[in-house]
C-alpha cells in the first residue's frame, strides 16, 4: 500500500493568498507566509504554490516571497507561475523549493521542462495542465490562467510534457475549481490511464470522500485541493485546516 499525498494548493496574487472559483473571482484569504506556517505545523504532505497572475502579466516569479515561504516548509513545496527559463527554475530551487511547476510556458515549447529536468532531474519538474470541458463534452487544454485556449489536444499535450522530462503531472479542472462538489473523475482517468508518471488531481475537492474517489476511481497518485483546506462551513469562513491523521492509501 502506498500512502497517497494530499496537497493543499495555494494561489498567490500579489503578496496575498487568494482562492478562485472556476479560475475567477479571487477571494482574498490572508498572508501567504502565515498560512504556509500553519500548514507546516499541521504536517501536510506537500504544498503547491501557484502565482496565478505571473504568466498572464508576463512577469517573473517573486523570488523573495518564494524564499520566505520555503523557509517555513519542512515538507516538499512546489512553485508555479511565470517560469519560462532554466535560469528562473534554478533561482527558485536555490530559494528552497523542491519542484518547479511549468504550465503556460510548456504550451508554447517544452524546452524549459527539458532543460530543467536535465539539470535538476525529472522529479524537480511538474508539468501542470489546466483543462476545461468543451460544449461537446470533450476536453480542452487552456493556459495563462484559463484565458487562452491551446490547440494541442489533451492527450498529445500531456505526452509532450512527459517526453520532455516532467516527472509528475498536475491536472487541474477549471470547471470544478473552487466548487467543492467533487473531482472530474472521467478527466482524471483519461490522463492516469495514459501516463506512467505520478498524476496529481486538482479541482473540485470538498470532502475527504472526494479525495478518496480521485484515488480509487480516478487512479490519481496524489490529490490536491484549495477551498477544502482554507474555508470552513457553508459561509466559507477563512480557516486554514487539514484533517488530522488524514491518510489515504492506494
Amino acid at each position, binding site marked *: 500500500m502506498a500512502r497517497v499525498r494530499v496537497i493543499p494548493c495555494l494561489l498567490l496574487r500579489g503578496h496575498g493568498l487568494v482562492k478562485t472559483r472556476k479560475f475567477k473571482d479571487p477571494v482574498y484569504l490572508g498572508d501567504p507566509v502565515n498560512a504556509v506556517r500553519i500548514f507546516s505545523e499541521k*504536517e501536510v*504532505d506537500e504544498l503547491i504554490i501557484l502565482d496565478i497572475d505571473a504568466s498572464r502579466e508576463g512577469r517573473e516569479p517573486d523570488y523573495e516571497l518564494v524564499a520566505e515561504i*520555503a*523557509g517555513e*516548509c*519542512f515538507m516538499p513545496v512546489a512553485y508555479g507561475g511565470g517560469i519560462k527559463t532554466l535560469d528562473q527554475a534554478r533561482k527558485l*530551487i536555490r530559494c528552497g523549493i523542491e519542484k518547479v511547476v511549468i504550465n503556460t510556458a510548456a504550451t508554447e515549447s517544452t524546452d524549459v521542462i527539458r532543460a530543467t529536468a536535465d539539470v535538476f*532531474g525529472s522529479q524537480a519538474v511538474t508539468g501542470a495542465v489546466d483543462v476545461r470541458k468543451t460544449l461537446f463534452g470533450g476536453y480542452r487544454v487552456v493556459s495563462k490562467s484559463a484565458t487562452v485556449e491551446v490547440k494541442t489536444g489533451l492527450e498529445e499535450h500531456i505526452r509532450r510534457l512527459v517526453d520532455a522530462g516532467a516527472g509528475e503531472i498536475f491536472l487541474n479542472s477549471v470547471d470544478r475549481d473552487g466548487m467543492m462538489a467533487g473531482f472530474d473523475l472521467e478527466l482524471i482517468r483519461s490522463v492516469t490511464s495514459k501516463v506512467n508518471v505520478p498524476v496529481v488531481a486538482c479541482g473540485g475537492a470538498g470532502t475527504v470522500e472526494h479525495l478518496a474517489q480521485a484515488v480509487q476511481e480516478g487512479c490519481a497518485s496524489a490529490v490536491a485541493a484549495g477551498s477544502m483546506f482554507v474555508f470552513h462551513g457553508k459561509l466559507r469562513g477563512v480557516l486554514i485546516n487539514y484533517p488530522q491523521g488524514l491518510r489515504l492509501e492506494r
Partner: protein
Amino acid sequence: MIVVIDYAIGNLAAVANMFKRLGVVCEITSDIEKIRRAKKIVLPGNGAFDACMQGLRATGLIPLLEERVLHEKIPLLGICVGAQMLGHGSEEGGEPGLGWIDMQVKRFPALPGLRVPHMGWCHVKRNAPAHPLVQGMDEDARFYFVHSYYMQAVNPQDVLLTAHYGLDFAAAVCVGNIAGVQFHPEKSHRYGKQLLGQFARNG
C-alpha cells in the same frame, strides 16, 4: 560545526533551514579550510547521478573528503543522490560513485501500476533500532522520498532502514561513520528533524 557541501546542486537551503530550526550551527560551503575544520559533513545531492558526481569532482574536494571521512572518520550523512553517491555507481549513469559503501544503485523495475519516480511519504522499518541515528524513532515515522533509483547494499547489515515501493529497498545505509538516507529528512517534518538532530548530536 556541520558543513553542507556546496557543489552547486539542488536545494541546499532546506537542509540548512532544518539545522537552523534545530539550533545547530551549520554552513553551506565548498571552502577547503571550513571543511578541514568541520566536525561533521552533510553531502546533499539532487537530480541526475552523473551530474552530481561530475559536479562534486569539479570542486576538487573529493581527496579532502576522503581524508576527513575515510581516515579521520568524522561523521558524514549523504542525502538522496548524496547517499547514492556513496556506492560504486548507478544504473542511471556511467560515472563511478565514491565507493565508500559496498552498494549499487538500481532503477525501479517496470511493474504494472508502479509509477516512477517514487514520489511521496513512506514508512520505514528499522533494522538496527539502537543505532544513534534512528534510536527513539517514532513507530509511525514517515519520510519524504523522491527518486527513480534505489540503493541496494551488498551486505544486509549495512542497511539501517528499509522501505517498500514495489520492492524492499534501502532507505538508509550506514557503515561506521558513513551514513546515507534516500529520503529527504530536511523535508520530513518532525521525523526528519529528529534524525538530523540525532546526526548533529550523536552521529
